[in-house]
């Protein structure tokens, strides 16, 4: 083949996608880093270089630290809980339990629905007195609780909704992995006299290792970008109790129109995600699939 011609053809085919990717993924990353060292443009004063001013503002801003802490708590709670539940769900749905079709549906349905819509439903669920949770708790004599209006419980509510939404999504990956485990392996372990827990611990879980890593990485990414439900449930309140990085970026960028500061906050988020990528690379190592 004429290799110069085929190179030209390949580049021409990749070009449209490349242009859009550069325009809306790569360029924004660079622009955000640059903007974080510039002041926010004002009508009478265009943006200019301000060094580390935006970062200094950030370090001195208690709301930033609050949002970062919340985000870390949110991540530390949603990631292990949703991954563990996803595994349990997949084991249930993959077993011979009665009605597993219905169970699979129950677990997976939240995944396909809009977060904005289901968050409105949860809002109703959490309503003091009338909501389902208070109605159930009133049976055991508990008083009405303002779940979303209290700084004590609001973040927990946001975490619950996130876990509810994504556990079924991660279940699918475990289910796919479970179905690739050769039945011979389980059968061999059984003949050796292993009981079900031993089979789970010694055979199934080790084989699910790569899936767990894949799911965990996705869970980390989600923990820093899933904020739709916060818009509906709490608006980041009360008193920033449910404010997280991405929500704070939205508030600063589009509530206060402080672009320079929003860019600095975004750089923190990008740095966090880059760390995840490096971690994934180190952990995955031999199991990088794209050959």
């Amino acid at each position: 083949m004429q290799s110069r011609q085929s190179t030209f053809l390949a580049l021409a085919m990749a070009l449209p996608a490349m242009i859009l990717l550069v325009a809306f993924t790569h360029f924004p990353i660079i622009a955000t880093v640059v903007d974080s060292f510039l002041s926010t443009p004002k009508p009478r004063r265009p943006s200019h270089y301000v060094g580390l001013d935006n970062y200094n503002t950030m370090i001195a801003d208690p709301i930033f630290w609050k949002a970062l802490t919340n985000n870390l708590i949110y991540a530390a709670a949603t990631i292990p809980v949703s991954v563990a539940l996803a595994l349990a769900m997949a084991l249930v749905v993959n077993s011979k339990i009665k009605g597993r079709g219905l169970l699979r549906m129950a677990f997976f349905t939240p995944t396909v629905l809009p977060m904005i819509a289901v968050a409105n439903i949860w809002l109703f669920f959490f309503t003091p007195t009338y909501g389902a949770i208070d109605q159930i708790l009133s049976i055991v004599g508990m008083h009405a609780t303002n779940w979303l209006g209290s700084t004590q419980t609001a973040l927990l509510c946001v975490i619950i909704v996130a876990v509810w939404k994504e556990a079924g999504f991660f279940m699918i990956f475990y289910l796919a992995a479970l179905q690739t485990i050769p039945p011979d392996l389980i059968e061999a372990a059984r003949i050796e006299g292993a009981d079900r827990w031993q089979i789970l611990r010694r055979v199934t879980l080790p084989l699910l290792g790569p899936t767990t890593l894949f799911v965990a990485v996705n869970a980390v990414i989600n923990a820093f970008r899933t904020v739709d439900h916060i818009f509906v449930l709490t608006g980041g309140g009360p008193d920033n109790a449910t404010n997280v990085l991405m929500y704070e970026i939205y508030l600063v960028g589009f509530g206060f129109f402080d672009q320079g500061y929003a860019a600095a906050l975004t750089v923190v988020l990008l740095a966090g995600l880059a760390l995840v990528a490096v971690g994934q690379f180190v952990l995955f190592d031999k199991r990088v699939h794209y050959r």
Partner: protein
Amino acid sequence: MNDVAVTPVDPSAFGRFAQNLSLETVAAWLLGVIWISPLAYAAWSAFHPQAYAAHFSLFAPLTLDNFARAWSAAPFARYFLNTTILVTSILMGQFVLSTFAAYAFARFTFPGRDVIFSLILIQLLISPDLMLVANYNTMHALGLVDTIAAMALPYIASAFGIFLLRQTFKQVPIELEEAARIEGCGTLGVLWRVYIPLARQTYLAYGLVSVSFHWNNFLWPLIITNSVETRPVTVGLSVFATPDQGVDWSVITAGALMTSAPLLLAFLLFQRQFVQSFMRAGIR
């Protein structure tokens, strides 16, 4: 060999096994009930008169009135149209661009190919909706603020789509392509007659994932739209379910179910395909 098979079952162990099993079954079912209960609760209040919104009674009359009220309280017809246009144009764009790019990366060698491909994969980690301010500025510079194009453009080039299709195309036997070329097919013909038909499952999987993602997408559309003519249903619902609806939960849950209905129906009808698609899309 035979004596392995006739090992007698220890009756007490069997009893414990049965007990464990039933406990697990109950736990599994309890989890299932908990998982579906928010939706069941929403369905209850949406299909019953307001007086029964949070009040359970076997004899509560059924009604569709809440849906009618929600439908007339906001221009939902327009929102649905906007979302449909948005989701379709993103999907079409993604299919076309991903197909060409995936073919280029699967079957051609050219200088810098692997570096370029790794650069594409960055989007798997840093999606365009994280770069809110920068992408807003770009759209502003292009004069596209408050258009459906602005909502769609950042997503049309999809690293995920390119990645999935490239994997699929690599598995197509090269002999099929060679045979097609001998028959007189050009590059487009090879794609259209060989690769695309063989990758149908991947297109279906990717399509379902893409449609459900973009039907549900909220933050970027919220920022880039500010009129009824462009707003998708998710943003429309968030505007609708603000305090001016008071605490009329019947209408709010009806609105929430209404915006989820197309996906929910599609999911219930094509459950197997949905689950398999998400699985397929996940196995990389």
